């Protein structure tokens, strides 16, 4: 199993224009009903092939470990990877703009809470669908970015830590993450050549 790392390297992102990054993130910002992460993966990994699942999960790990929303942290990291600082800027602007404008509009119209039964009912439908959507994304990511069965144990431990012991995300990351990192620690067996072939 200790074959070369290079085979799973991401397809080098071709020259992606600033306009293309902005448009893509604007589109995600405008359509990502039920949570952003599934749409980021669907558009950027599956459709555009700007990065692969492994890179996606790496960026997701970083986004979750740092303060800030996953959606905007992912936009910053992906934008930087594709086109540097300018890429980051247009990515975060794009993903925020539609929702911000929408909520601004809603805020100017509805200052008071009005109970609209069909709206709350629709919201319940959306919430239920979002559960299915996130489950799907979890399955796809697990298939493509894990290193064997032991990682399923780490997934399980994380879920138990958060859902059963109600640890905050930060503590789950530190605790389970620490064990998992030790498990995957650099082995001395094969002297790894530092830089992987680009």
């Amino acid at each position, binding site marked *: 199993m200790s074959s070369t*790392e290079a085979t799973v390297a991401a397809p080098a992102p071709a020259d992606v224009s600033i306009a293309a990054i902005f448009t893509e993130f604007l589109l995600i910002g405008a359509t*990502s*009903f*039920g949570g*952003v992460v599934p*749409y980021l993966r*669907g558009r950027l990994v599956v459709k555009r092939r700007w990065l692969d699942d492994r890179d996606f*999960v790496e960026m*997701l*790990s970083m986004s*979750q470990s*740092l303060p*800030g*929303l996953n*959606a*905007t*942290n992912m936009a910053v990291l992906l934008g930087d990877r594709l086109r540097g600082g300018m890429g*980051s800027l247009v990515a975060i602007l794009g993903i*925020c*703009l*539609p*929702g*911000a404008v929408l909520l*601004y509009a809603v*805020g100017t119209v509805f200052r*008071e*809470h009005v109970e609209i039964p*069909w709206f709350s*009912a*629709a*919201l*319940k*439908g*959306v*919430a239920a*669908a979002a*559960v*299915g*959507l*996130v*489950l*799907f994304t*979890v*399955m796809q990511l*697990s298939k493509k*970015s894990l*290193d064997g069965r032991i*990682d*399923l144990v*780490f997934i399980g431990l*994380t879920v138990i830590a*958060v*859902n059963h012991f109600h640890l*905050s*995300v930060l503590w*789950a990351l530190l605790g389970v993450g620490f064990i*998992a990192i030790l498990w995957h*620690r*650099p082995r001395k067996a094969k002297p790894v050549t530092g*830089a992987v072939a680009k």
Partner: protein
Amino acid sequence: MNQIPALVRVFAYLSLLTVGGGMAAFPELQYLTVDVHQWLTQPQLIHLYSIGQMAPGPNMMMIVPIGDWAAGALGAVVVLVAFFGPTALLTFGVGRLWKRLEAWPWRDAIQRGLAPVSIGLLLAGCFTMAKGAIFGRETAAIAAAVLMILLQYKINPALLIAASAVIGALTLE
């Protein structure tokens, strides 16, 4: 009274609490905006929260109307910059640093170790969501149907969400 400095302070502070998602900051958001500064009432906050959940994009855009109500359109912009600016810069910096550590042997270990934890966090969030969202047969059927369809067909999930909203409006009232 000029609320702008207070908006900057509150939302920059709140942004630092959002490790692992916006909801981590919600209790403090409620305390500071409703109790301390009284920019809005508790029912208004819940109202914004539920609309925010329905909206696309990052799930904390409910802060925009809070800024607007406290200090007008400028308040809305200020809140956005204060909430997203500092964490964006931090992430940008850490991302760059991470790239420069490419030759560090532990970098790969950290990456491999955190991957399952990340996926676990997504799954844990999903279960938490399910606790509130799945009640009775209809909602369970919606969640299961969405999962099955996505596994089977290449389809834009937004369509499934929209369809679920319609089904919800028709059957869950």
